[in-house]
């Protein structure tokens, strides 16, 4: 396998340059398109980001915006006949899109692992939880079943399952939702992956269980220094977990940057909309929420120009109808902070301080 060189940052169109050369995971201009009976679905259409070791990238966006497809793409799980994948995925210096599928399979589960929203879909109903963790471990470690089972018990204990040496012989359906999620985390972490992708890991859980699981992921990350991608539609969860934030809309990244600045100085009208739509416990209650009008776009017929334009209250601000004809590229709007919108810096700044911030 020839060794290509990671694209210089900011080179291909649509790529947001990054900050860190020490990125553990670098995704460059990732595109994943599906051929369907209805037409070409551009689920991910030019997304770039970096994640460093020990850090967490949060990906937020509405359902269907391409979050899950992005993460499955990184894991190399889109090799079906109807999927077209392009771009680069660099994991610890190794490019994966062009790599041999067997090689990527070897990395999966060892170097990178994934936690899903629905643990039942990731666990086999006919095998005990222990058997499944043992299997995951033995794929990458040449040890006896006995040793592997010991490891499984250890992991279940680590994720806070009571009486792990009994529970290890239980079936997934005998576990409660929260315990299943813990068991799946145990399985994902059994090989100490350096990259952990969590796709809506707590969406199906109650808040009190969610708090337990987020706490667990945070602790484990601290312990192993893994890079984490946390996919969610809950801005509260990302605020709590993420160092960096990527906002997706219609298969593209519309804003990304350090979580602190994206929350305190969001620069894209869609991000404003998300923040305004959400009632918040930490603020005095507002009389009214500020919804985003309309509904999310179809990825088959994305609106021309800026995909957000039919829903954007500011679509007429940029001159010459450019919003409806030209797709805005990501531009730097602050330190390591990027947004894709045709408005000028001054226009955005004015709208944010005068119209949006006071109402949030």
């Amino acid at each position: 396998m020839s060794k290509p060189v990671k694209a210089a940052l900011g080179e291909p169109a649509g790529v947001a340059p990054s900050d860190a050369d020490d990125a553990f995971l670098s995704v460059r201009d990732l595109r994943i398109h599906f051929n369907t009976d209805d037409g070409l679905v551009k689920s991910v259409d030019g997304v770039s980001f970096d994640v460093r070791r020990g850090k967490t990238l949060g990906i937020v966006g509405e359902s269907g915006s391409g979050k899950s497809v992005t993460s499955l793409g990184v894991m190399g799980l889109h090799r079906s006949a109807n999927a077209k994948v392009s771009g680069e995925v660099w994991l610890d210096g190794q490019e994966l899109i062009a790599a041999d599928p067997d090689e990527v399979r070897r990395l999966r589960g060892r170097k990178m692992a994934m936690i899903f929203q629905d643990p039942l879909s990731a666990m086999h109903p006919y095998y005990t939880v222990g058997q499944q963790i043992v299997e995951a471990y033995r794929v990458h470690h040449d040890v006896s079943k006995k040793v592997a089972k010991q490891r499984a018990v250890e992991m279940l204990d680590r994720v806070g399952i009571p009486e792990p040496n009994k529970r290890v012989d239980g079936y997934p359906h005998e576990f409660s939702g929260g315990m299943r999620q813990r068991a799946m985390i145990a399985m994902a972490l059994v090989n100490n992956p350096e990259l952990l992708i969590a796709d809506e890991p707590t969406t199906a859980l109650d808040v009190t269980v969610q708090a337990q699981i987020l706490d667990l992921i945070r602790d484990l990350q601290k312990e192993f220094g893994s890079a984490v991608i946390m996919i969610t539609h809950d801005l509260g969860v990302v605020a709590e977990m993420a160092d960096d934030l990527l906002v997706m809309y219609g298969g593209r990244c519309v804003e990304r940057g350090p979580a602190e600045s994206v929350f305190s100085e969001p620069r894209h009208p869609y991000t404003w909309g998300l923040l305004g739509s959400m009632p918040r416990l930490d603020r005095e209650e507002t009389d009214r929420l500020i919804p985003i009008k309309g509904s999310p776009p179809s990825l088959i017929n994305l609106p021309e120009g800026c995909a957000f334009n039919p829903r954007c209250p500011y679509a007429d601000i940029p001159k010459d109808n450019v919003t409806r004809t030209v797709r805005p590229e990501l531009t730097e709007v602050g330190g390591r902070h990027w947004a894709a919108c045709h408005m000028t810096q001054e226009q955005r700044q004015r709208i944010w301080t005068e119209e949006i911030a006071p109402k949030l």
Partner: protein
Amino acid sequence: MSENPKDAAVTTPAQSAGAQLTKDAGPGDVLLKVTGLQKHFPIRKGLLQRQVGAVRAVDGLDFEVRAGETLGVVGESGCGKSTMGRLITRLLEPTAGTVEFQGKDITHLDAGGMRPMRRDVQMIFQDPYSSLNPRHTVGTIVGAPFRLQGVQPEGGVKKEVQRILSVVGLNPEHYNRYPHEFSGGQRQRIGIARALALNPKLVVADEPVSALDVSIQAQVVNLLDDLQQELGLTYVIIAHDLSVVRHVSDRIAVMYLGKIVELADRESLYKAPMHPYTKALMSAVPIPDPKRRGVKSERILLKGDVPSPISPPSGCRFHTRCWKATEICRTTEPALVELKPGQRVACHHPENFEDQAPQETVLLSAAKEAAELVPEAVLEESAETSAAVAAEVSEPPQEVSDPPEDVSEPPRDTDDK
């Protein structure tokens, strides 16, 4: 969501909690009253289908809903919220207890007797996808209540349906379209239109926005709000999202394992929750502000999972996970009593209030374990109202007196299951 939620919420004792109870159907009067409501689902086994137990989904609820208000109901999955909703709309037969609507006992009305009631009480369901028949047009769906009730509106059903569609923000021209042609938010509007068709008095909405994207949730929440103002509706809104519930409700009931553990007006509940479970629940909500990250000092982690409603814990159902639990909590069920005007709580050692069982000074061992997951600051607050917690907290990092006790017990994993 009342006319002026702020004014209504910050009340002096004289104005609060059902002060004006007797007039007929005016705003603030009791519209719905529930007493001792229970629903036990039998568990059957074997050839003879003998009953071997019961899921105590709803296990003794007392509350009332006042005309024009929004009562929010929160609690974790499986605590009985939906069952409660289906009981008060009489979609389910209660095992025990009564439901009164406008002063009339409707608990045991048969289908015929319920018929006039069906106009007044309507339900909106969680899932905008499965709650609409895919083979029926929007016109048929929203018009169904007229047909079922034999109501002939002025100007005809079609005209009335189109009017309602525009009320909920749908295009009247969509009359002949099918549900699959609409987005989630639009489908939820169709469900709302159907519920509003006969101009009901009470609308019970079970998770009306939780299947929707955030941006769409806000549209539906605002719509419910507008409709309440315009039509003087009374709502019971069931949701697990505490931020949404705070936004929409005037008063809030917190449920745990089939019981209401706290019932209070919004302001009091969020500013000074009195039930430890309410406090834990609220502290668990992630706050969308990265600057507050690491301020872990407020988060209360609960031990283990919610116990099974088939054999709920004795006494206070929360005692297996509560950091304040003492012997009385294990043996005696606390009643839901109004400790502050407008705030009812079922707890022996409430937060933000005087201890109801100060003679209890020894924590259960489960409570000691639970306390390990509770931040210092919270423990100290709790100590102010619980002699038992105070005893633990004030205990200096003990030298010799009692190490054996703590060591003899494994620190974790003693979930009694």
